[in-house]
């Protein structure tokens, strides 16, 4: 069986087949023998060759959150049908950056105004949460298109604050 795997910004071409209790998996031509067994909710013991790992894996459709060696990965595994669907939706959102607050809090200060040019890493807005002031930064170059909130406003986690294009 063939999958396309997207992890980080990279794509990997993966093949998998059963061999006894194990699987033979190739990632971009590199071969691995893998034995993965579920110990309890979301926890796998994974033997790759004979190297042993404890891996936490949570799945939501084609999307996986995998925690191993204190690192966390967001991985998308697409079969042929899912691949075609993903292609369609992808091209739409490009070039647009939406600054969202990751948690509920209060807007302390807005550091940019609409029409401002911003550079990656530039401070955009200060949000106070858990009694700490946190500066949210731009991750790309662009122009501030819209500022949705006002200073002093209370926001919920996931709220859109600023849109950059």
């Amino acid at each position: 069986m063939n999958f396309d795997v997207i992890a980080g910004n990279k794509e990997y071409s993966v093949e998998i087949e059963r061999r006894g209790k194990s699987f033979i998996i190739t990632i971009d031509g590199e071969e691995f023998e893998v034995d993965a067994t579920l110990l309890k909710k979301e926890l796998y013991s994974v033997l790759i060759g004979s190297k042993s790992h404890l891996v936490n894996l949570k799945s939501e459709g084609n999307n996986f959150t995998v925690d191993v060696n204190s690192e966390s990965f967001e991985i998308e595994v697409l079969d042929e049908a899912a691949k075609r669907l993903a292609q369609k939706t992808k091209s739409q959102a490009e070039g647009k950056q939406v600054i969202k607050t990751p948690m509920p809090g209060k807007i302390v200060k807005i550091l940019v105004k609409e029409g401002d040019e911003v550079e990656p890493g530039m401070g955009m807005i200060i949000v106070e949460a858990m009694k700490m002031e946190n500066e949210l930064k731009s991750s790309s170059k662009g122009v501030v298109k819209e500022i949705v909130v006002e200073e002093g406003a209370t926001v919920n986690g996931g709220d859109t604050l600023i849109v950059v294009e």
Partner: protein
Amino acid sequence: MFKKILIANRGEIAIRIIRACQELDIPTVAVFSEPDRNSLHVGYAEEAYLIGEANSKKSYLNIDKIIDVAQKSGTDAIHPGYGFLSENSGFAARCEKEGITFIGPSSDVIEKMGNKTTARKIMAEAGVPILPGTNESIESDDEVYKIAKGIGFPIMIKAAAGGGGKGMRIVNSADELKSCLRAARSEAGSSFGDSSVYVEKYLENPRHIEIQVLADKYGNSVHLFERECSIQRRHQKIIEETPSTAVDDKLREKMGKAALKAVKSVNYSNAGTVEFLVDKKKNFYFLEMNTRLQVEHAITEIVTGIDIVREQVRIAAGEKLDLTQDKIKRNGCAMECRIYAEDPDNNFLPSPGTIRTLRSPGGYGIRYDTCAFEGCNISVHYDPLISKLVVWGKDREETRFRMLRALNEYSITGIKTTIPFLKKVIKNKFFIEGDIDTNFIASRIERSSAPSDGTLKIAILTAVVESFKKAEKESLFHNQHHPEKSQWKIAGKWQMWGNRF
């Protein structure tokens, strides 16, 4: 001894205190806010009372409500833990007035030490070295500018009522002064309800080393050596260890004596911590006195064998200190890592949420103090500390390797934590050499390193196996699926069989 102790706190520290009380055979009373109904400290205490809404002003900082619960439950002593009301002299005074013992120093001592400028004045008079700066809080920007010019940039602006790194800003030049003052004042105001600030000379790359003290009500006092607390982010500690690699026997004795001078100068009683900044030439300066239990007290406990919380309760109950300085010996080394719900790759932004899975470390030399469990919520309303991982070793390297081993065993999913970052620090070559200062995280640790390729492959392989198994199951299900033999019917039959037995 007390009949009943109320713990005016939450989280891991509430549990820590409940444990000490239970070992002293004293019943405990927990208080909790609405979202904390599901918190572990409620379950561990003998009694528990709802005291208000999530907002700590309405619950854990609500003095009237807490006093009311204390009286209703027949409590004769209150342990404030750290944070919240622990350094609130008004609360201590109210306890004194109501005839409830506040487990900590007296309200007037808290007030003196809580006001950082008053504390500086007292320490200077007692002969404890302090940094150049002001002993009064300052109102106008111009005045700050004048003082800054006098002692020279960089300077530090600090909240007069402050602590815990809040309301604190380093100012490198005159241009930054205005914005730093604004930020420090607004943070001071929102954290302590007092926006006054003072100025101190900023010491470049100092170490933060503190001395733990215990003093009874009869003038007896001892120190329990130092804790090295230089590994900090946002001026808040994340790794502490004892002994410090910078402190030799001579310096330890000098700092210990200075700390006890501080204790005597205000007639301090109960547990406390005198914090110092130490420069490269081993000069040390009084920073502040924490008139409460510290987060990192456990490292001192495991090298000295002294249960500090137990001592706090005994001292508050009027018992005499049965320790003398010469009887206190240090055995080996200890290190603490604080595990916070924070995203180290995103400037330690809090990462509240539900812990989906949790695997905690264990084994020889490990002490694990936590309030977390699988499925628990790390709330946006409170400090995002999940746990304290404390390890003991006979020397620093054994301790360091044990910490690394424990961090490798430790897994939390569902929210971001400081675990990967802590591992990076423990493995850092400057940390290994003990070459650390308060600027360590900014100067020595690379922020966002790309995840290792090998680890990524493990993740991909596991995800692919899971995808494959799912696809297999689906095709099996589709092939066998038949209306008359639906899975529900099969389950129903099983159920009937089950009922017969």
